[in-house]
Each structure stands twice: as C-alpha cells, then as structure tokens.
C-alpha cells in the first residue's frame, strides 16, 4: 500500500509539473525575483498602477506584440549591436535603448496619466528580462551568425536556436520547478553582491552580458542536434541562463525601486 501511495504521489507531481510552459518560466522567475526585491514604496506604487504583482505581466509584451496599438514595441525585445560589435544605443529597436528611454521618462511619472505609467511599467517588466536573454542579441551579419538560425533534433527536423535559449536551456533538469522555487534556489545573493550587479546603466548591463551571448554560438552551433548536447554543454547553457536571469531579476527590482524611490 505504501508503495502504491508513493507511486501515486510521484506520478501526480511529475504530471503537474510537465504542464509548465518554459517560455513563460524564465519571465515568471525573473519577475518573481524582482517582486521579492522591491522596496515597500515601489511595491505599493507598482501594485497601485498594475493592480497585480510583477509576475502577472511577465509576458504581457509577448502576448500583445502583434496587437494594435502595441505593434511597434514588438521590435524592442533584443539588443542590437553596431558595426563595431558594441551595444547600439542609437538604435530604437535595442532593448537597452528602450529601457534607458523609459527610465528617463518615468522620472516624471507623478505627472503622467495612470495608463501611461502602467504601460511603461509593462514594458520595463519584459524588456529588462529580455535584454538578459542570451539568445536576444543581434550582431551585424558579417561578424556573427544570426540568432534566427536553426538547430536540428533526432528526427532531423529544424529547431529554433532562439527557442532553445529562450525556453529549453533554463529548464534542463528542472521540469518540476515553479518560478517561486527558482527564486528560492537561485536568488540568494547578499546585499553587497546585489549592489554590485545593479551598478551601472542598462547599456553597461547589456555590454557585460555580451560574453555570455557570444558563447551561445559556440555551445549550440548552426545545424547541431539539440537533443545530443553533452551533459557538460547543457550545464554550461543552464549556467549562462541562470547568471543572466538572476541579474535580470535584481536589476528589474533596482529599476523599479529607482523610479519609485522617495
């Protein structure tokens, strides 16, 4: 009887967690880390403007990127590099550019209509996360492979490089994890470490993430079989995603705390 109960419990747990969609997982986890690191003042203001916690709107920009009047924002989800390989802060499509623009705009949030404040918060929630996605960096064609190239699987079918880094890599070996469990396990930095991570500007944050972004092309080269990556490769992919996701969580909180500081 005991064995049967253990079996039932195990099966139930596995089944529940297999329902997760990992595209939303990383965004939910990042916003969960951020929510936990908001100052009381920022939390109160955000809940006032959004009427929800940060994770509720984690993928709002993805849901609405092809819906009027939000279509233009559909192009803001990646960091774009200039001809010299540096983050192109003159490019309006660049996520770091948009985060910086919104940060400046929100300095005046008290004089802005509530709907405008809300919309800009929704943008920040998603863009601070997306600018840390290892697969969300676009270099000039001459210097780098493009992020939309394909990998393969065991059946020889095409698999998106972008999806592997957005969705799969952070989930290797973690199909049972919820966003809050991820935050419990991964967001364990000391105040001193958090301060160090949050130092600088979105431009600097994007620039310091580039080495990790560059590694994506080495770890998952064009045409490689995504189901045959070695354990070591998968661990490295997951490590890169974790490093970026945790930074994104703390930085999102920092951006929000700065906007709503007393």
């Amino acid at each position, binding site marked *: 009887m005991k064995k049967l*109960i253990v079996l*039932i*419990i195990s*099966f*139930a*747990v596995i*089944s*529940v*967690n*297999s*329902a*997760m*969609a*990992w595209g*939303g*997982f990383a965004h*939910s*986890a990042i916003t*969960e880390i951020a*929510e936990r690191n908001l100052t009381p003042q920022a939390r109160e203001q955000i*809940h006032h403007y959004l*009427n*929800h*916690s940060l*994770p*509720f709107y984690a*993928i709002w920009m993805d*849901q*609405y*990127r*092809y*819906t009027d009047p939000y279509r233009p924002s*559909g192009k803001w989800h990646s960091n774009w590099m200039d001809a010299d390989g540096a983050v192109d802060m003159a490019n309006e499509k660049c996520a770091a550019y948009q985060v910086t623009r919104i940060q400046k705009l929100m300095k005046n949030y008290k004089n802005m209509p509530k709907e405008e404040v809300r919309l800009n918060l929704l943008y920040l929630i998603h863009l601070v996360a997306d600018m840390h996605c290892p697969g969300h960096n676009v270099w000039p064609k001459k210097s780098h492979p493009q992020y939309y190239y394909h990998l393969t699987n065991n059946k020889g079918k095409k698999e998106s490089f972008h999806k592997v880094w957005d969705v799969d890599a952070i989930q290797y070996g973690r199909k049972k*994890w*919820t*966003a*809050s*469990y991820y935050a419990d396990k991964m967001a364990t930095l000391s105040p001193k470490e958090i301060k160090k991570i949050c130092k600088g500007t979105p431009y600097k944050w994007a620039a310091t993430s580039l080495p990790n972004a560059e590694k994506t092309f080495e770890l998952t080269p064009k045409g490689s079989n995504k189901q045959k990556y070695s354990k070591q490769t998968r661990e490295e992919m997951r490590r890169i995603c974790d490093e970026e996701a945790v930074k994104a969580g703390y930085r999102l909180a920092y951006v929000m705390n700065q906007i709503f500081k007393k």
Partner: protein
Amino acid sequence: MKKIFLALALLMGVYSAQAWNWVYDQATLLLAYENMTPKAQEELKRYLGENIRSQVQTFEAARKKGDLLETADWRTITLDSELKPVLADDKNAIVQIENAVEVVKNRASKSEDEVEFAIRKIIELTIEMHNIANVYLEDYPYSKEDFEYRHSQGGYGKKEKFKNRKWKSLWTYGFSVFHSAWSAEMHVRDLKVCHGRYKDQYMAGTVRDWATDMGKLAKPLYEWAGPFCDLSRQSHAEEEERFYAGVARASFRIAALMNEATK
C-alpha cells in the same frame, strides 16, 4: 475517509495535470485558510488533515473513479432574469452549501465522516459556484452550454488569427496558460494585491447574495459571448480579470462560511 480523499486528490493531480485549475484551487484554499478564524483553521485541519493544499478537487477525483456521482449536479447555480437564485430542488451549489454549513454547525451531534464531507462540500462547491462556467443565467441560454468560441492566437505580424476552443474549458483552466510556472503561493499573493481590499465586501452576505453577485459578474459577459464569438487578446485580458474576481470571491467566502460554521 481522510486517507481515501487524500489518495483521490493526489490522483486528481494526474488527471488534471494539463489543466491548471488544480493550482488555482489550491491557491483559493490557501487564501481562504489565511482568512479563517483560529477556530475555523483548527477545525479544518482536524477534519481534513494538516496538508490542506491537497484537499481540493476531491469530488472530481471521486467522480472519475465512479464514486460520488451525485456531486456533479451540485456544482452549478441558476439565476432568473432579476439574478435571483432559482432553487427548484437541492441540485445546486447554494442549497448544498447551506446544508453543509448546518452540518458543521451541529457537528457535535454528527459523525466525523459527515462533518468531513460537509467541509469538503463547503470548499469545493463554493469554488464551483464562483466558476463562470457553472453560473447559468436564464436570460442567456448559452450560459448553460459548452459552446465553441474563437480564441485569438495573436497576429504574428499579420491579421489576428483565431482557433476554435471550448467555452467551459476557458473558464476552468484557459486563463492559466500565461501563468503556468506559478506556484499556488504566487497566485495567493496576486489575489491579495488585486482583491484584498474588497475582502470585507466579498465576505459579507449569504450564499444566495453571493449567487446574485456572481450573476452580476457573469451578465456583462453573456451580453456579447455566445457560439463562435471572437475572444481577442484584449478581451482575453479583460476576461482574465473576471475569472480572477471569481477566484478571489471564492477564497474569501470559503473563509466566511467556515468562520460562520465554527463560531
């Protein structure tokens, strides 16, 4: 009996794993528990056990095993044109919840199994009556049907695309898709953020008042919804707020019922 229900609830996790209503139900009960008096909390744990998060969807699990089939008729509420409950017999959530509260109030003279079953009825049927899929409006016959609607798939740079989906599924687990990595605790926090300030308002009144309240929540929906209606991205977001409003109401009202039944 406790062990049987626990095993069934765990089994339910297997059945409903693809639907997130299990997590929503867990969140509902966790939030309800937070709002119960110490006495109500004590009685809940006494009859259902310490692990309260597992004590959801036990009726549905039993029905899937061929037991407690009569409970399928207790999930709904019907409202007339003035949004007053229609109570022709006891096959509705309102009468069943009222009866269950009486059993818990008189628990000293009842068997342990009777009280446990009554508490389960309070929890599960209060959740059910706050699910829009179980709110029938006589003025809107479609509210009773599981019709197909057209669910937006977004536009992907082109015109918005739609896919046919089932209406009742939308209200049972369709809104969980965008929050599939959430724990029950994350839902609890979010419910408190968006509905915590209405707690006293939600908890006041009787089960019959709450049925009318759910009718008011559902009526604007059926003024536009029906077979093959379009659910755009924008409408989806608006309806998710309606869904959440039902979840929050259920949470606070389970607490109100347990507080009343155990005072």
